[in-house]
């Protein structure tokens, strides 16, 4: 934390009660650096799991959880050792011999990235534990566990990277792992489509990311982030703007900013633990990490700053609106991810020059905690109710009391209700944007302040809507997908026997104690995480802007009340049912983004591809075919016109040649 600076009544400094942090110098030195362990362990465990026999699900689970625990320990160890100033640097397989270009391939971990690593490792562990229960009957659990482990390693590589090429490595490996996880149920056509869509959309945007890195490296003659920052802060200009805009395009792809956002809601086809990982701690958050590392360069290019601010602001508002109208709880969460990730990126553009990216990373951490909590709780609920469509989950927390408080906590944190972690991080973003507006180039900050400010009541509205449905009174008849009163079985004709059978099924799908412990941990962190800004890892301005705070909370409360009012009289207590049918249908389809992709990109590309193949076969290849045919024809002509028996002249010719050879030999 940072010492507060101003003292007007609207701007009250929070009393400094920074949490004391002892020194951990007594920890023994291990061979190598800690970042090697943080990244290496999940890779090694991914390989170990993958090398097990196909049916060894139990052993896979043991290795997956063991790997998760060891990675968590390594991340914690790293956090304890990392200095408050500067960063820990580690060698990897570099430097590479690429001519004039220096590719040192160093890892570099500073304070705030060490705590981010810890959160990533923690959520990955919880996801592994949860997935063991969730995918108990899945014959491909082994592949899933190995992919999750590799995915974690890739994200940790991005977080701890000190080199643009290493970042790119982690970035792309994450994209590939997300492809595998989204398409995990590869027998399902929709899952295959969603996986392919995620891969293609993000890779298309990655063309920008690769070119951005190439442009940055070309100027600096090195791929180390440090060298790039040093070179480009000395020479800002058009080249830097081009490079940064290219980077932003890449980030927009992975972080699902408009217009690349549509892959993310579709990615719900993956198993819920995978969604929790992709949406919370990894993948979508990676863009924030990269741009946070490049913050000084982002700030020195006003075009890049505006591009990101506009894309993020549009995305956050649009996604929050769409989230409200979703007929499926999981899709609602997906759109809320789009909206929340855009807030992190927007926060980066609003940070006053000279301050670190810590507020954005704080929101990343906070979002990671409460979003993984929400996803896992919804996955748990889905197992109990048989689906995540709103009609199935209606009254869910009344019927299954055990999911009540995880879901409640998660929604409150998402809505940003004090004192939960979501409130703290969002409020600090607003404060930071407010002080960003005051500086000379405050345009983007103003936009962000408005967008995040307007996003707060929208978020509160959709959270309220979800809660009203989940918490509907039980006297209304319950619709259930696979289980429930409609179980028809000749063996259970008497009512109480049916009830007992339902009880058995529910007991079977009851959560394992370890998975429940994981969810509980996340729930506790949702509360305790509010203390994060008071720790030494985050350097944030601890101000309370009273008017800002009061107006935000007032707007949120008003929005929530409006939703409550709208839900009255609706059977499912779904406030979105008040929307016109056309509108909610459009929202369900993401405003037709998929159709637009098809019409604007896919179909023209395929058309072009067909014409290319036509040209290839009918124009380019015709010369080759013609050459082949004419050579043959010539040969045939030659054969036809020449006598088939040797003529006398041939004998003379051969004799002459022989004579010449003999003469030449004798001469020599």
């Amino acid at each position, binding site marked *: 934390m940072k010492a507060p600076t101003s003292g007007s009544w609207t701007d009250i400094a929070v009393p400094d009660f920074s949490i004391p942090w002892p020194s951990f110098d007594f920890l023994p030195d291990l061979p190598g650096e800690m970042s090697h362990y943080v990244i290496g362990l999940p890779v090694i465990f991914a390989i170990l799991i993958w090398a097990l026999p196909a049916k060894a699900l139990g052993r896979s689970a043991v290795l997956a959880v063991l790997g998760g625990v060891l990675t968590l320990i390594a991340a914690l160890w790293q956090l304890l050792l990392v200095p408050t100033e500067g960063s820990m640097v580690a060698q990897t397989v570099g430097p*590479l*011999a690429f*001519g004039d270009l220096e590719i040192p391939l160093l890892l570099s971990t500073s304070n705030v990235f060490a705590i981010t690593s810890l959160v990533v490792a923690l959520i990955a562990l919880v996801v592994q534990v949860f997935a063991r229960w969730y995918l108990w009957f899945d014959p491909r659990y082994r592949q899933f566990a190995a992919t999750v482990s590799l995915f974690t390693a890739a994200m940790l590589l991005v977080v701890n990277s000190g080199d643009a090429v290493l970042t790119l490595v982690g970035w792309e490996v994450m994209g590939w792992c997300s492809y595998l996880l989204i398409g995990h149920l*590869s*027998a399902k056509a929709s899952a295959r489509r969603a996986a392919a869509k995620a*891969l293609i959309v993000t890779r298309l945007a990655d063309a920008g990311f*690769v*070119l951005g890195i190439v442009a940055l490296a070309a100027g600096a003659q090195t791929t180390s982030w440090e060298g790039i920052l040093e070179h480009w802060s000395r020479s800002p200009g058009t080249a830097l703007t081009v490079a940064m805009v290219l980077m932003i395009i890449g980030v927009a792809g992975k972080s699902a900013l408009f217009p690349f956002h549509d892959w993310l809601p579709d990615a719900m086809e993956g198993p819920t633990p995978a969604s929790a990982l992709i949406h919370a701690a990894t993948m979508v958050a990676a863009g924030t990490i990269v741009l946070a590392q490049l913050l000084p360069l982002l700030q020195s290019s006003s075009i890049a700053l505006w591009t990101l601010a506009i894309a993020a602001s549009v995305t956050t508002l649009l996604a929050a609106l769409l989230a409200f109208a979703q007929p499926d709880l999981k899709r609602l969460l997906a759109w809320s991810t789009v909206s929340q990730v855009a807030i992190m990126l927007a926060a980066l553009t609003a940070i006053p020059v000279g301050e670190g990216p810590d507020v954005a990373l704080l929101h990343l951490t906070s979002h990671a905690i409460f979003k993984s909590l929400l996803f896992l709780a919804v996955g748990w609920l889905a197992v109990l109710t048989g689906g995540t469509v709103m009609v199935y989950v209606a009254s869910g927390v009344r019927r299954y009391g055990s999911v009540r408080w995880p879901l409640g906590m998660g929604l409150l944190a998402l809505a940003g209700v004090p004192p939960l972690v979501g409130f703290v991080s969002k409020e600090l973003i607003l404060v930071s944007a407010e002080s960003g507006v005051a500086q000379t180039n405050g345009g983007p900050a103003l936009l962000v302040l408005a967008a995040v400010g307007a996003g707060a009541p929208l978020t509160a509205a959709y959270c309220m809507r979800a809660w009203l449905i989940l918490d509907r009174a039980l006297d209304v008849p319950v619709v259930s997908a696979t289980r429930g009163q409609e179980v028809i079985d000749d063996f259970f004709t008497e009512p109480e026997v049916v009830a007992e059978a339902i009880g058995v099924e529910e007991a079977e799908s009851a959560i394992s104690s370890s998975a429940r412990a994981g969810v509980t941990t996340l729930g506790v962190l949702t509360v305790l995480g509010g203390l994060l800004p008071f720790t030494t890892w985050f350097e944030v301005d601890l101000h309370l802007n009273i008017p800002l705070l009061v107006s935000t909370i007032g707007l949120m409360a008003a929005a929530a009340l409006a939703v409550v009012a709208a839900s009255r009289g609706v059977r499912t207590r779904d406030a979105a049912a008040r929307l016109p049918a056309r509108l909610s249908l459009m929202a369900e389809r993401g405003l037709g983004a998929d159709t637009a992709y098809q019409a604007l990109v896919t179909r023209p590309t395929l058309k072009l591809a067909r014409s290319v193949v036509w040209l290839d076969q009918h124009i380019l*290849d015709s010369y080759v*075919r013609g050459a082949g045919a004419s050579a043959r024809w010539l040969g045939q002509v030659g054969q036809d016109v020449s006598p088939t028996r040797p003529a006398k002249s041939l004998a003379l010719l051969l004799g002459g040649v022989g004579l010449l050879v003999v003469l030449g030999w004798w001469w020599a």
Partner: protein
Amino acid sequence: MIWLLLAVFAPLLGALGLPLLARLVPKAPARVLGVGSLGFAIATLTGVVGTVLERPKVSLEWIPALGVRFDLAVDGISAPLLLLTGLMGVVATAVPAHIDADNAPGAAVESSRLALYYACLLGTIFGAVICFLAGDALVFFIGFECVLLPMWLLIAQFGDPAPQALARAASLRFLMVTALGSTLMLIGLLAVAASTGTTNLQVWAQLAGSTFSRPQGLVVAGLLVLGLSFKVPVWPLHTWLPWVHSSAPSAGSILLAAVLLKLGTYGLVRLVIPVVPAGFATIAPVLGGFAVVGIIWAGLACLVERDLKRLIAWSSIAHLGFVVLGLASGTEAGMQAALFGNVAHGVISGLLFVVVGALKHEWGGADLGTPHASLREAAPHWGFALIFGFAASMGLPGLAGFWGEFGAIYAAWTPAPGRPGGFFVLLAVGAAVGAALAAAYSARVLREVWGGERTKPAIADAGRIELLVVAALVVIVVGLGVYPSLLLDSTAPVVSTLLTGAP
């Protein structure tokens, strides 16, 4: 020295000895021939490994009147390619020879025919080994030509049995195109030889085109580049490749992709860039432009291609586009990337052709339109090999394909001084878009072939030998991807001498 003899004579003996054996023992069992040829290939690989470690030099008097000596040597650039040739020789002879008896598909194959098949494989390897060892332009050319005939036989005689006309057309295309390419190259080589009075490649590199006037250098470079572009192949001279791959037997495809195409790029590195640097610099923008058009053209074709083997052939054209783009940039980074991409493409396309060749055999055709059982359900080992191959082929970091692509894009963004910078930046953008196309077509194939709910018609999964082959290739692809210095450090010193002209 003994290693060099082994590397050169093992494939030659095999190529000549196996048909002789079949002639002497007409009832030689197929197993003997298969194991025998595998033995010769392993001996070649052993010889090559020894040669690479020992780095012997041979220089024999040959045609003194023309200044031609029989020079064989290894350096940092040829060593990886020699290893690749040795390895792929083993792979090609180890995979099952899915060839049919003459004119009677499915019937038992006569031993003489089988012997000829293996002799062709070993003959191709022999030519390639000579080519990569050559320290003399004429020796290089002879190796280059030695490869053609066995390859042509493989395509014409042992290819796809179903449409004979197609196989014949494909082999004719191959012969025409490569013979034309070699002729153009030969004219270029003779011009250099006439001007320098020697055919020693090292001397050529030291002279670095100083014996030519500017227009002469340009013409010679143009001839050589044009001739080699047929082989690489560079757009728009690429049209033969998909046809040939679709009819070649899978071992033929493996050698074609992993070894033959490398001769073209290796020729550019050895015979053109150091020999006529000024001329090459003049045509480099055109060459780079064609390379990038090829990347996008082939990537687009892959989106709609219906034959899986042809699709892999198209993807090869795209990958070699990156290699040529790296060479065209004229920088050390570009050449490093090109040499890396060259080897990486050899291993990755070899792996893909192993898988796709087996699938074509199991499916009875490589058409993607016919409904097949999902590989992940029906044949998980092949499924893994396919998804791994495509991941590597789309340039996923951590696997071998990445460094060549990234390096080529970087090199195009920062071309050598004197090249048109703005144009090359455009080329870099095009190449990056082409890389995105690779993801699109990989996703397309995996969606259609790898995933899916179909489990019928059932197909056999990979056998033990095939698994071993796939595992070895996977390890190499991962090894090169995770620790690229293995290759980069080998080529780096030679690259800087080739580009600066210093001995």
